[in-house]
């Protein structure tokens, strides 16, 4: 728990409610308790105790000491009633007969101790101290949990406030509140800003820093400050102020850091300005469904170095495109489970409010935030062809194809759990054939050349589209002639093409076959 939320120690005298019908015992208890510094209120029956409790109010008493045998009801009846009124209040039960069943039931109802009469004074003092301390701890915990719940609720509301007509997101903080945050806001009728942040740590302090940065970002953006200035300003703040203060640190390692990716989109100029410091590389999907990585690596997060290179990049953008952003909680969980992050994101999106029930999400060790930011355009279906896999593979990985294929299978099964065995077979086998061909011929088996694989799913028309692009020149071929030849002659060549064209429902060859596009209807 963060030191910022720790409660101050109690400054008042502790209060005990003593419920005892025997006058001698009552006095004996009162005198001892007062001697130890407790403020004591007395009751002779359950009804009187309930009246006293109701009069003083919840949280007034720190401990209740009750005899078991009382004139109207038993001490257990009182415990049962108190548990409903204030489950944090600890109680001590007194009785002349230490019956096991009675002890068990008392403990179940929240009694922290059970003392036999005649009461030993040392045992009484230890018991009442223990009970009062437990009440204090319980109340503090309830207050802290309540504060965390409030904070978490506020954060979820603020994040989901960004979820408007053109923003779709999944947000799963590891605890009630955390450092992942997303904001999306209109700057003027032609442009909007979007900021994704991931602050180190999963505590209220991380949520606070994240919200603070978002406030600065929004304010400076609306006053036309360049992205680089905003990020530089916040980096300076973290490095020179926040991380210099030992009191503000909650971790022992290097202070607070903030991975952040910001977008400024100008639909009139058709440009997207991106600044990424330490966040996973965002992806832009163009209206034709093809994905484009926006940058290479995110570089170090804010807060690490005073001289971090902070540089925005300008990309052309068109109506109907979508930018996908996520925090490394998604990437880390996907890697640990051997699946592609966008497939995990799809699974979370599909599960919606039931995502917390997904077994894979229970294994998350970090906050997870994923957002799809759509660039609207009249007449264009936005964001329907959702990317599931976007990855580059070195050309010398043909021998690793079984492992790669197993990863694609796991990913697709997670993203598309209803995929039939036949569809899964066809997609994986055709992808395998196309990838082997691209590595062998397009990359000539060389490690420095890469094959881009993209797999996307059309959310309305329910088909999977696979793109395989290699850097080679492709080659001329007559597919029909090859197919005819196979029927006549037993040959051990060219079956790869026949596989591809028969497994997919539709195949498009571009650049002499250096780009192959496969469609599979589900």
């Amino acid at each position: 728990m963060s030191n910022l939320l720790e409660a101050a120690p109690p400054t008042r005298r502790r209060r005990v409610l003593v419920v005892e019908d025997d006058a001698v015992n009552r006095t004996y208890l009162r005198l001892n308790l007062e001697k130890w510094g407790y403020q004591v209120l007395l009751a002779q029956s359950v009804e009187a105790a309930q009246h006293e409790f109701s009069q003083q109010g919840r949280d007034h008493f720190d401990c209740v000491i009750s005899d078991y045998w009382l004139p109207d009801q038993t001490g257990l009846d009182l415990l049962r009633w108190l548990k409903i009124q204030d489950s944090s209040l600890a109680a001590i039960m007194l009785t002349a007969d230490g019956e096991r069943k009675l002890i068990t039931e008392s403990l179940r109802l929240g009694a922290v101790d059970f003392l036999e009469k005649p009461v030993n004074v040392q045992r009484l003092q230890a018991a009442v101290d223990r009970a009062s301390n437990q009440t204090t701890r319980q109340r503090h915990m309830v207050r802290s949990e309540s504060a965390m719940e409030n904070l978490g609720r506020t954060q979820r509301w603020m994040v989901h406030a960004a979820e408007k007509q053109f923003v779709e997101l999944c947000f799963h903080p590891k605890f009630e509140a955390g450092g992942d945050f997303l904001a999306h806001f209109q700057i003027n009728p032609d442009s909007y800003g979007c900021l994704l942040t991931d602050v180190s740590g999963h505590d209220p302090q991380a949520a606070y820093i994240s919200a603070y940065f978002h406030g600065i970002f929004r304010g400076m953006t609306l006053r036309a400050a360049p992205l680089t200035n905003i990020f530089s300003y916040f980096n300076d703040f973290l490095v020179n102020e926040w991380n210099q203060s030992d009191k503000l640190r909650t971790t022992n390692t290097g202070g607070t850091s903030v991975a952040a990716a910001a977008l400024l989109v100008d639909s009139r100029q058709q440009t997207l300005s991106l600044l990424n410091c330490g966040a996973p590389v965002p992806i832009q999907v163009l209206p034709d469904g093809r994905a484009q990585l926006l940058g290479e690596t995110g570089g170090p997060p804010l807060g690490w170095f005073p001289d971090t290179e902070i540089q925005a990049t300008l990309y052309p953008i068109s109506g109907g495109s979508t930018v996908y952003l996520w925090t490394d909680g998604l990437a880390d969980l996907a890697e640990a489970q051997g699946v592609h992050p966008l497939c995990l994101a799809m699974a979370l999106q599909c599960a919606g409010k039931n995502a917390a029930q997904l077994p894979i999400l229970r294994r998350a060790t970090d906050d997870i935030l994923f957002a799809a930011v759509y660039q609207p355009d009249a007449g264009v279906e936005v964001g329907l062809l959702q990317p599931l896999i976007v990855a580059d593979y070195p050309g010398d990985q043909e021998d690793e194809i079984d492992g790669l294929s197993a990863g694609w299978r796991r990913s697709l099964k997670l993203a598309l759990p209803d995929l039939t065995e036949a569809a899964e077979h066809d997609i994986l086998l055709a992808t395998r054939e196309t990838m082997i061909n691209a590595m062998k011929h397009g990359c000539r088996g060389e490690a420095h050349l890469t094959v881009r694989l993209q797999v996307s799913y059309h959310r309305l028309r329910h088909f999977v589209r696979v793109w395989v692009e290699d850097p080679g020149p492709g080659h001329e071929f007559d597919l029909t002639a090859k197919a005819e030849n196979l029927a006549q002659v037993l040959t051990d060549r060219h079956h790869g093409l026949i596989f591809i064209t028969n497994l997919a429902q539709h195949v498009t060859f571009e650049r002499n076959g250096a780009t192959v596009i496969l469609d599979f209807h589900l």
Partner: protein
Amino acid sequence: MKMHLDTQHGTFTITLNCDLTSTTVEQLRPELHAQLATPANPGAAWKLFRLDLAATKMVDSVGLNRFIGLLKAIQQRGARMQILCANPNVHRTFLFTRLDQHLELIKL
């Protein structure tokens, strides 16, 4: 991989307990060719070569190409070739590659 020679009925059966792919076929090929080429194997004793792919779930093009090399060798011996498959995807693969026109394809 299991191999079974039934000389009584003139059948040489090979049962594959894995997929027939670019990565598995390289491990299978030397053993298959050894079985076919070794004099200890009475090639003349079998007239039917049966490849049991009942446990196979996937056949890829490289696996198929290597297999066709085997098929040609068997044809040169004058023997027939029979393939048993249970998986509908594997069966379909032999159909669209037109191999069913060169051997006997039996779906279990």
